[in-house]
């Protein structure tokens, strides 16, 4: 299987340990993983901030770098969604179509392609799962609380394969954390308030660790938690599936 690891720019620069964990996890599960060294960014930051025009360079570059791989795996729901949903701007081209169809958020790939049913990992902790919105309502990694459909949750199911791990139920299971890209700074007051409320929900339910599919949301929550010295660790779910402690 010709698998490429797409490392979101902020993970490359700020959370390399998440990309390392993703790489190790995929290798453990039998994938030969290629890491294109000239990759940069999917273009989401500019596009969501209102300028698809400024993201075109990054988007074309992304297609150039990744179109030759069968599967493009990324530990970010939001970046995966951007490629799948907004690359229509690049037009109907074979390589664009291929990249859009073959980009997978990590849990999606583990569930839908590798069909993982067991994991050699242990993590005896109470874990709060933050359902990042783009993964949840964009990629449909779980059934959102607004919709009336049979419940499922890919990420939770994967986490529950880990030995000793308990996923804790929250009062508001899928409320946004308030990161939202440039929203975090342009709407600072609301963003911070949303983040504090999210942390509160996790803490009230006695979690040791908050995890999720998107390090961007987690970076926001981590920033708030560290400022207030809250007793909670923040880990990407790839780190937990890869065996636990970071």
């Amino acid at each position, binding site marked *: 299987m010709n698998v490429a690891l797409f490392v979101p*720019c902020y993970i*490359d*620069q*700020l*959370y*390399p*340990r998440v*990309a*390392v964990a993703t*790489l190790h996890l995929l290798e453990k599960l039998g994938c030969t993983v290629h*890491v294109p*060294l*000239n*990759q*940069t*960014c999917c273009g989401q*930051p*500019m*596009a*969501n*901030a*209102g*300028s*698809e*025009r*400024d*993201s*075109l*360079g*990054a988007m074309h*570059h992304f297609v150039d770098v990744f179109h030759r791989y069968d599967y493009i795996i990324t530990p970010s729901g939001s970046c995966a969604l951007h490629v799948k949903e*907004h690359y229509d701007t690049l037009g109907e081209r074979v390589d664009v179509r291929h990249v859009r169809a073959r980009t997978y958020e990590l849990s999606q790939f583990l569930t839908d392609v590798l069909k993982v049913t067991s994991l050699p990992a242990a993590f005896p902790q109470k874990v709060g799962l933050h359902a990042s*919105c783009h993964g*949840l*309502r964009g990629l449909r990694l779980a059934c*959102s*609380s*607004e919709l*009336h*459909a049979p419940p499922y949750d890919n990420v939770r199911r994967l986490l529950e394969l880990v030995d000793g791990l308990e996923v804790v139920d929250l009062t508001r299971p899928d*409320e*946004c954390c308030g*990161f*939202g*890209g*440039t*929203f975090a*700074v*342009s*709407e*600072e*007051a*609301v963003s*911070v*308030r*949303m983040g504090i409320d999210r942390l509160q929900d996790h803490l009230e339910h006695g979690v040791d660790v908050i995890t999720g599919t998107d390090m961007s949301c987690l970076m*926001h929550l981590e*920033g*708030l938690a560290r*400022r207030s010295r809250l007793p909670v660790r923040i880990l990407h779910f790839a780190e937990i599936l890869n065996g636990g402690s970071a």
Partner: protein
Amino acid sequence: MNHPVAAAKFNEDAARTQWHDEALWFVRQKRDRASRTIPEWEALREQASQIKAHVLANLDTYLEEFERNARANGVQVHWAQDAEEHNRIVHSILKRHGVRKLVKSKSMLTEECHLNPYLEAQGIEVIDTDLGERIVQLARQAPSHIVMPAIHFRKEEIGELFHDRLGTEAGNADPQYLTEAARQHLRAQFLSADAALTGVNFAIAETGGFVVCTNEGNADLGAHLAPVHIACMGLEKIIPRAEHLGVFLRLLARSATGQAITTYSSHFHRPRPGTEMHIVLVDNVRTEHLAREDFRAALKCIRCGACMNTCPVYRRSGGHSYGYVVPGPIGAILAPARDLKTYATLPFASTLCGSCSDVCPVKIDIHTQLYKWRQVVTEAGFLPREKRLMLRLAGRLFKYPHLYQAAGRWGRRLLRKLPRRMLYTPLNAWGRARELPEPPRQSFREWYIENRKPE
């Protein structure tokens, strides 16, 4: 108007923000419970969405059919191109009947057209009879929510307001006492009004009739007592047949307040003998909106307010922070169509979390439209200059791998080396309440090159 500024102001009172958030989340939960009583909920949403899509694609035909049937029922039908013409038409009807006092049930359209100040300037007294609307009217404010106009008021504040304006006991904030006072006050208004104005929730092309939904019966009291009934509606309120009401009435109240149905769903067809009934059909930029393919679906809205109740930003910034007659996510995609420059910050007052689109009973792709409006705002040059510059710069950076890698290296180095006071300046909005991430020594790429020795 500037959403982030207004929202920051709202958040200065943390306890109030929390209360506002919880009050609206309570309504969202009621919606969840009520909608779950209908096994075919998702099919119903899909059907409603398709009926509305069909109507929007055939709006001219259905409007003419509606007009024909309404006229045949003895209703007088008027067409208004814009807000000004709408107000003129309403005033001319009132003037002909020598109306001094008008009772009005809830109509977001008349808010949109600023009918009240227009009529008041002509010497006509206008009484809003929906309790929430009466509260904001007495407080000389605008509604902060389309279904619960006074949701931003606490009961103690309403106690004070009523004491001041209606003469209730000082310090009494008992909801039952205050509601009874409002009831007596409004009863007198209904009895002394010369004309009644209502909104329209659904107008049925096939019958020429229309339906008004209220929980207080105030539309009926007004319309049944007064010799003149004027109903004002936006062009998009049309549905083809009476049988389609079954789809929309089941969705509307459950989505809005978690009720199975509004207490009153009043069907109006023709004037009582000796009275007049008028319908004013208002365009006011709707046909222009209809022509914008990316944004057309916003006209499917049935004004249930569910997107407001579910929106984590609305709940923590309040309806007034949007500065538009319809606040919240749906307002943020309607307002830019009206005045892009004035409402340029609204499409950005969202994390694009998508809860609005999933909760919407007519399946409007609200968050997708927010994303698209952002592009329109930028192309029109209404983005703040610094932000525009930053985006250009970032765009260049990510186009060239070497540039990106070098910028990353330098960025991490600066984050590590700079003293705290130089990082956490007033310009660093991220750092006001949050720590910056701890920068690692190596990027993933650098780690990979060192540890995996790729060719």
